[in-house]
């Protein structure tokens, strides 16, 4: 194993009773990069973070984090990593300043007071610094949580859904901090449900489904694997089938129907598909149109498209996506 990878895992497995949370997770995160682990709820993202941060022991497989074996050299791994988990993990009965000074002391940081003031300022928490964290807003607590992970610069920073449920201001701030960290040489491994977040931050994305990495690549590479989401709305049921046939031919994908709206949609396999192409083809086929739309792929689209070759249950899942879209 080379030392140029900050995180290198092979075949990590973890089971909780009957549930196989991880079924052979392989990850290779180069030093100084940001790796986004993307996947739906229950894919195993959090379990992966808990294993890689020594909170859980793998049932099988091995991993090296910051150059040390995860199991045999757990103490050495802990010397070099920081973790901000889902939800908060600070002492709410202490003030923000007291929290950061405590974690500074525990990390044996020189001059914890100075570092604390610096971090409070960086995260926009100076004003509230001397009030108990229990009186803070959720966004402020999450920022404090991340600040607590940075009292000393970690070699590898793990962020488990760092911005889920956060307001745009906090989200942008956290993104800025992550970008700044990699400039200093820290490797960041973050899990997220948001394609946009991975897009903004990650050099590489590992798509995780059912405890395995199914695809890896840069955000652009992953997006190029999936085209835009095309939808056609027609005036009556009779023309729906004809519209679907055209869509099928152009997108190379199985269209899904929304019979209430007389609409048919498909996530294109061809990234070069455009609205004029679509309209021309439908016109040539004599399909009367009420509406035609083409929008960038969402996480759902990317995810469903990239996983539909692996598991057999994709048809049902596509239906669910349609329902979600209708509701939205």
């Amino acid at each position, binding site marked *: 194993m080379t030392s140029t990878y900050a995180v290198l895992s092979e075949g990590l497995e973890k089971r909780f009773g009957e549930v196989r949370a991880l079924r052979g997770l392989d990850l290779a995160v180069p030093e100084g990069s940001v790796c986004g682990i993307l996947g739906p709820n229950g894919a195993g993202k959090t379990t992966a973070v808990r294993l890689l941060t020594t*909170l859980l022991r793998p049932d099988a497989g091995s991993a090296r984090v910051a150059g040390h074996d995860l199991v045999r050299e757990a103490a050495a791994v*802990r010397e070099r990593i920081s*973790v901000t*988990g889902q939800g908060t993990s600070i*002492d709410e009965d*202490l003030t923000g300043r*007291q929290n950061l000074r405590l974690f500074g*002391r*525990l990390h044996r940081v020189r001059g914890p007071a100075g570092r604390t003031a610096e971090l409070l300022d960086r995260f926009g928490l100076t004003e509230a610094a001397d009030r108990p964290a229990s009186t803070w807003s959720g966004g402020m607590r999450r920022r404090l949580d991340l600040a607590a992970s940075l009292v000393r610069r970690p070699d590898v920073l793990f962020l488990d859904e760092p911005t889920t449920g956060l307001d745009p201001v906090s989200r942008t701030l956290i993104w800025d901090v992550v970008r700044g960290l990699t400039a200093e040489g820290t490797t960041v491994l973050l899990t997220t449900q948001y394609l946009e977040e991975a897009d903004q931050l990650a050099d590489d994305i590992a798509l995780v489904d059912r405890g395995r990495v199914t695809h890896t690549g840069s955000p652009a590479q992953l997006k190029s694997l999936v085209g835009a989401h095309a939808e056609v709305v027609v005036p009556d049921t009779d023309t729906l089938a004809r519209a679907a046939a055209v869509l099928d031919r152009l997108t190379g994908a199985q269209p899904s129907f929304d019979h209430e709206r007389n609409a048919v949609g498909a996530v294109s396999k061809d990234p070069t598909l455009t609205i004029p192409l679509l309209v021309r083809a439908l016109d040539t086929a004599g399909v009367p149109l009420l509406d035609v739309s083409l929008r960038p792929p969402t996480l759902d689209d990317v995810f469903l498209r990239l996983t539909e070759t692996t598991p057999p249950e994709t048809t049902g899942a596509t239906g669910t996506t349609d329902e979600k879209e209708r509701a939205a």
Partner: protein
Amino acid sequence: MSMLAYHGTAMLGRQLLRLRNNPGLLILTQTMPISMLLFFGYVFGSALAVPGEAYRSFLVPGLLVATASGGIMAGMFQAAQDTHRGVTNRFRTLPMSRAAVPLGQAAADLVATAVGTVPFLLVGLAVGWRVEGSALEAVGALALLMLFRFACTWAGIYLGLLTRNEEAAGQLGGATFLLPLLSSAYIPADGLPGWLRTVAEWNPISAVATALRDLFGNAPVPDGAAWPVAHPVAGSVVWCAVLLGVFVPLAVRQYAHGER
């Protein structure tokens, strides 16, 4: 070892900061034993055959030990709360000894108990309790009390790390309130019927309460009691050693293993 001391001290500092931020909590935990002293001492005391003052002298050491057994509840609640809030997991990812967090918690609890015992003893003095033995024996009694509290707190920390849930810990902790009722903390055990007396005499609380009464010179060691009560000081030390021997390794292991 020095790192354990360093991190343990940092964790102790954390707990003391929590107390400083919320001093009301310390006062609140002390109102319970004081009001029990007044209720039991005057309400029950008036109905007993022994004179009220004699019962209150008997009661003060008993309540001290009963309150110390509340370390189970305190340790459990704090450990469960930290786990529930995610702080324990953050500590687990830090490079420090696996014993530092529970040790710091138990040490801080000891400081809080030492401070909290002062007002209780003052009220005790006001209602007629006195140190009737030597000063050295009185110091020994307080040291024994602290040792027992320390042991109870470790038991609580283990249970709290096991339950992980504040509410469950609160419920379970409430049940520990019953433990002193099955001991000689509030009443002499020799008046209890056969098997109940055996249970009470093998309750560690009885041994420690008897030891305190003996060392403070408040009441003699009862005749014909089970070994830990018949030899209360040695019995108390053995009980504390057993509790610590069992629960310190269990708590440290439970902390280190986490949720795996």
